[in-house]
């Protein structure tokens, strides 16, 4: 893990990616965020952190995850397709990479209490898991509406010993859970570390989360002989995508594609396509693209996938779009549902609804036979079975 990244695609000394990023935090959070900013690179580069983190990723998470050559999916698209199997991580998604890494950072900072936000519950379960493993108090904020919609993950978190706190403000979903977690942090600055679940929030979070998820692209580089032609990943906040892109950002011949949730359609008014429709603004202390009104009030997004329905996006993605290093597209709820069924029946892998957005976008791309396409299969679909049953008449 390098501590001196000099890439036009990475964060600068002031915490910005081009026009995006920064740390728009109230003074009440200055101490914590500044401590993290000063120490995260040193901790991540330290031998003790690297040994512990690598050991946990190997022994506990089950890394490296396979890079699986998917023959029937490839035949369908007339090219070679590999699936990076993050769905095989313990707890069923890439989220655990970040949760474990940040927990080790928190322990290094002397924190004794962990808070997190969660939408669908995947990051909440990953954080509760990491806290159980390392014996740390854990409070997870979750929108009151999401608590009702995602009952099995709420039960998992409680089984793991975490306290699940309903966010009852605003629209009672991921955005509000994040607000409540930040408010909790303001009220408990000394004991608590906030494990943000995606590559969002104030600097240094987007960079720290990207570095922790970069294990995904580091493994792809080792597992593949030579470079892929394309890497495709879904984007909500953007942590699995940045993890899959990270070690290829400076390889211009690799086409990087991020897929947003278009909901009922980009122009339907019921969408989470932040890069397509958003304007520059501050959400959760980061200057990025935001779905908002002309007055700067944040608009509630829609996606069938609770993991993608976020009205902002990580500032690095906003920058990568602005400098045209990554191409971003959108996929509707229905297209994602169809792609989930397709992968299930072609490869025997039921993907998460979030991941299904990346798979669906393949239909909109043109491939040559000799291409080598990597899809980041970010999560498994068990948590989405209710939705699949409801919409696919199972």
């Amino acid at each position: 893990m390098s501590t001196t990244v000099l890439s036009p695609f990475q964060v600068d000394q002031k915490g910005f990616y081009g026009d995006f990023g920064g740390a728009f935090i109230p003074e009440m959070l200055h101490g914590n965020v500044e401590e993290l900013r000063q120490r995260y690179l040193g901790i991540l580069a330290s031998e003790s952190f690297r040994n512990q983190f690598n050991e946990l990723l190997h022994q506990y998470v089950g890394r490296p995850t396979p890079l699986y050559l998917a023959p029937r999916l490839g035949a369908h698209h007339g090219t070679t397709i590999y699936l990076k199997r993050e769905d095989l991580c313990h707890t069923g998604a890439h989220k655990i990479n970040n949760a474990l890494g940040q927990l080790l950072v928190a322990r290094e900072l002397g924190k004794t209490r962990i808070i997190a936000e969660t939408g669908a519950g995947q990051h909440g379960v990953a954080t509760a898991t990491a806290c159980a493993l390392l014996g740390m108090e854990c409070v997870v904020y979750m929108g009151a509406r999401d608590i009702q919609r995602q009952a099995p993950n709420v039960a998992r978190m409680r089984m793991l010993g975490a306290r699940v706190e309903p966010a009852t403000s605003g629209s009672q979903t991921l955005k509000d859970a994040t607000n409540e977690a930040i408010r909790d942090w303001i009220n408990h600055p000394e004991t608590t570390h906030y494990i943000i679940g995606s590559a969002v929030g104030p600097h240094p979070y987007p960079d720290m989360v990207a570095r922790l998820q970069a294990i995904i692209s580091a493994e792809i580089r080792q597992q593949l002989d030579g470079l892929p032609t394309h890497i495709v990943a879904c984007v909500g906040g953007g942590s699995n995508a940045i993890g899959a892109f990270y070690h290829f950002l400076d390889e211009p011949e690799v086409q990087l594609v991020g897929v947003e949730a278009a909901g009922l359609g980009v122009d339907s008014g019921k969408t989470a396509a932040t890069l397509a429709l958003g304007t520059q603004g501050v959400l959760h202390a980061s200057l990025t693209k935001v779905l908002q009104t002309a007055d700067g009030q944040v608009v509630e997004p829609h996606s069938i996938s609770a993991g993608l329905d976020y009205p902002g996006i990580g500032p690095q993605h906003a920058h990568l779009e602005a400098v045209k290093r990554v191409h971003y597209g959108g996929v509707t709820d229905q297209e994602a549902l169809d792609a989930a069924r397709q992968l299930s029946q072609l490869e025997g892998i039921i993907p998460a609804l979030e991941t299904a957005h990346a798979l669906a976008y393949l239909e909109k791309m043109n491939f040559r036979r000799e291409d080598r396409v990597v899809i980041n299969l970010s999560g498994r679909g068990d948590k989405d079975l209710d939705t699949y049953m409801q919409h696919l008449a199972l």
Partner: protein
Amino acid sequence: MTVTELLQSPAKDLLNIYFTAGYPHLDSLCELLPALEAAGADLVEIGIPYSDPLSDGPTIQQSSAHALANGISLELIFKQLEETTTQIPKVMMGYFNTVLQFGFERFCQRCADTGISGVILPDLPIELYLDRYASLFEQHGLSNIFLVTPETPADRLHYIDQHSTSFIYAVSSSSTTGVKAGIQDAAPYLKGLQTAKLKTPFLVGFNIASPKDFDFACQYARGGIIGSAFIRYLAKQNDLHAATTQFVQHIRQLQLS
């Protein structure tokens, strides 16, 4: 009078009342400003409602959501200010994004036009303010008011002091607004501020709800800031003018006795 002039005057025990524009009714600002002036508040903070007020507890979250549902906007707040004539020093408090979308230059101009002499944007850190907006604020005669907390280290406190003009907003404890009972625990911290040889006076805010809290704040500071408690009081009253008079008298009772 501007907020800087007020703080440069010898007046002490300054009572600064915060209210959320657009709450409880869309045009309540036009009633509350004269009422606060008549009741003897020294300074008002006009809250700009925002959908995601990270620094605020439930009371101001709810008043903000209510005001937005009423249809308030920054544009409308300035229009209401134009229709209201008061001399009481006025500052605006809001979140960075609302001002960013309105346009910083236009915001500063409209503040200057409508008698706003200070601005509090809790999520605009001092470094970014100095980098990007300080000259604009100065050009329009606006004082930017920074927050300090019990966790603010001495060097940063003095850095903030050096760049402050009217007053420093001393947050009484590590918390969001209006969520803790009282400020009595803040004595060591407030004593520290009192003896820190700051060039800028400070007012204490967050969790001041009673005459006792206000009096306590005034023992250390030039005054106190009350927001959530005032909004909770308004929520129970029909006559905003009478309610405002009662509230200000109630809070000031220990100074008057």
